[in-house]
């Protein structure tokens, strides 16, 4: 066999490999982009400041953003079905202040924590039922959830309530891992991400979530339970809201009814930056975790530079814009192929 033959064959092999790869993993591209940006940010900051990638900073990244990560997991479920949940910030505030006030009135934590989770899930259920059975736009239904959550938070208390309970104090203790440390809140957040990813990729429910995001009509015709799936994603998001309320209360040592104003938008931003399409059908829980790290890193860089924190939102906004455009390009390219 001549050399040209071999080369030709090798190049077709490479071509098939590439087409197999793009055929399979196009939807991973935005997530790869997010990872690239995260690495670029970390490396860039390290080169610029010289003392950025310290164990302390890296550990703080998880500790400071644990609640955001939990919210992002829930939001990923919702956005993959092509929905949206604006209520998560106020659900977090409500369950946080509810938990703090229950603990302050002497109810044991073992009861308070389930109550917080159930309260979050209940608001999620309400939104899900509105969306599915009353045919309300997710934007509107979850906006109602946002006002409801915030209102309920103010009903519970207008002021911050300190929490001295040993369990919650323990949740923010820093467990050293060499030079690094991790707090139970961070472990919970990581666990939530892992469970979320497992549910999304290895359960029928999770696959149905993607199917609904692809086409509700087709999913129904395939005999899958669309109604239950759509309600469930909001319940999951609400549950994550409740869990985030717990983490935030433990982290700050207090419940405060004005917590998390605007957090829903941060959450949507990190989910989109992590590679989830707002139009549904594509996205990864692990990508959302990367999105949270990107967000957290930008925040840390801003405070390192001593600049105003509002710059975080400006930069996140620009990133979001870039990502939405990139996603658009990917989607329209894959549609052209048809």
């Amino acid at each position, binding site marked *: 066999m001549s050399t040209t033959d071999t080369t030709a064959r090798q190049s077709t092999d490479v071509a098939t490999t590439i087409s*197999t790869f*793009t*055929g*399979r993993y*196009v*939807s991973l591209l935005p997530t790869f982009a997010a990872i690239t940006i995260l690495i670029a940010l970390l490396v860039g900051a390290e080169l610029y400041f010289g003392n950025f990638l310290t164990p302390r900073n890296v550990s703080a990244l998880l500790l400071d953003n644990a609640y955001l990560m939990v919210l992002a997991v829930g939001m990923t479920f919702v956005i993959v079905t092509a929905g949206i949940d604006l209520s998560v910030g106020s659900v977090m505030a409500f369950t946080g202040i509810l938990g703090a006030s229950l603990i302050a009135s002497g109810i044991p934590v073992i009861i308070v924590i389930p109550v917080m989770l159930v309260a979050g899930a209940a608001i999620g259920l309400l939104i899900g039922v509105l969306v599915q059975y009353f045919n309300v736009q997710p934007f509107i239904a979850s906006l109602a959830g946002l006002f409801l959550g915030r209102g309920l938070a103010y009903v519970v208390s207008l002021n911050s309530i300190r929490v001295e309970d040993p369990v919650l104090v323990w949740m923010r203790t820093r467990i050293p891992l060499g030079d690094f440390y991790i707090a139970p809140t961070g472990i919970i957040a990581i666990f939530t991400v892992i469970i979320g990813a*497992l549910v999304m*990729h*290895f*359960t*029928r429910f*999770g*696959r*149905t979530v*993607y*199917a609904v*995001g*692809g*086409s509700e*009509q*087709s*999913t129904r*015709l*395939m*005999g*899958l339970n669309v109604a239950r799936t759509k309600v469930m994603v909001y319940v999951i998001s609400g549950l994550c809201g409740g869990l985030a309320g717990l983490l935030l209360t433990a982290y700050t040592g207090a419940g405060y009814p004005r917590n998390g104003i605007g957090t829903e938008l941060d959450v949507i931003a990190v989910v989109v930056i992590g590679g989830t399409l707002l139009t*549904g*059908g*594509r996205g990864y829980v692990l990508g959302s975790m990367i999105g949270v790290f990107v967000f957290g890193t930008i925040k840390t860089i801003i405070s390192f530079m001593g600049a105003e924190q509002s710059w975080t939102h400006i930069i996140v906004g620009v990133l979001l814009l870039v990502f939405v455009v990139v996603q658009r390009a990917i989607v329209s390219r*894959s*549609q052209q*192929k*048809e």
Partner: protein
Amino acid sequence: MPLSSPCQYGPVDAVKPIVELEGATVRFGAFTALDGVDFRMFPGEVHSLMGENGAGKSTLIKAITGALPLESGTLLIDGDPVTFPTPQAAQRAGISTVNQDVDLLANMSVAENIWLGREPRRFGLVDNRAMRHQAREVLNSLAVDIDPASILGGHSLAAQQLVAIARAISVDVKVLVLDEPTSSLDTDEVAELFRVIRDFKERGVAILFVSHFLDQVYEICDRVTVLRDGARVGEYLTTELLRIDLVQKMLGRDVAEFAARERVIEPDMPADPFLSARGITSTPGIADADVDIAAGEVLGLAGLLGSGRTELARALTGVDRPEDGILRIENREKRLNSPRQALSLGVVYSPENRRTEGLVPELSIQENIVLALQAQRGVMRRIPTARQRELVISWIDALGIRPADPDRKVRTLSGGNQQKVMLARLLALSPRLLVLDEPTRGIDVGAKVEIQNLVGDLADNGLAVVFISAELEEVLRVGDRVAVLRNGRVAETLPADSLNADILLALVAQPDLPEA
């Protein structure tokens, strides 16, 4: 003509029907969609259901696949009376359906599209590897080579159709219902599908093949049941039924054979074209295409799927901007940058996919027709309601849109009538050149003839028309001249009179000679 009895069915006369419908009646309010229809299918046969739109074909399919309950009458499977509350129940009984519009999920993998809802599991979790493996087996049994792990949306419509069939047969299938499976496939792909159908037939599966393409029905089907206005006209062996008789039974009237239009213009290239394109290149799709279209003629575009039919139409009408080439309209060089600008020069385009690119299904007939006209005038100069009404009613009349109710939502119309609404919208703009991309796809024979005749009338009234169709006979019937497209080039332009279907097929299918 006497009905054929089971004994006429040759070798399987001893076989009992697998599906039997007796006196099936379905009503929607006052409207009777099926009126005491008898229907049966035998194992190992390909059966066709023929009829115009509204004849009750889809209702009958829904009745045997569990999508609609019967008001009266019985459904027997293997001789036992059954009722299917849901399509899933029918599927469990071995009746699978592949719908006209591929109802799959473009965002998910091929394997998932086949197994979704029935994924193999290990320890309660979806076993992706086993799922891919089983998907590969099903696809292999169809002898198609598609990577089960690839995302479905990246594949051609034909491949997606095969995946839909793979899903349908991944259960133990006894009856396979294919509703218009070939409407978006080209010749090779149809052949591939037929190979798969014959394979199932061998295995004793009963196949219900519903198609508007008579050629295909005659090629693949053993028997045909004809419906008209919700009632059964009869059941025939395809070998014993002449095509002209079949059409006559479907239409219920003598076919006014497609009146051969008097051809006005016959020169190879018109001397004074309305539009003249040279060297149009637009990647991907067309390269160096030359086209001339004169007022008062119909130029048929014939070519296989992927030959550049649609791309050429889009490049001529400002939808896509060609990279290269010169476009002259009435002898003046123009660049078309947008459909809006093309419209200002009198060039309009009716897209291939009327449902997603053309009509707004949730709006009424009136709103759909007035839409483009209003857009052309600008928002500030609203057409008065009374004038709109008058206009719309005149178009409904002229094109015979049924039901003739301007407030009817377009979603509820049949394919043929939707197409007429689309045409009315474009004609309301008083165009000079009308580019029709597959205007008769997926509509019934009667409506097809009407649209074809309409196109002829329009040309007789001085309009220049480009008519694209996958059906070569239709291109010949309607076109004055036929441009043959191969691999993105206009290979030849010939007067339609000098061609017949066989010659045209040979031209279309001819491999391009390698370039020197």
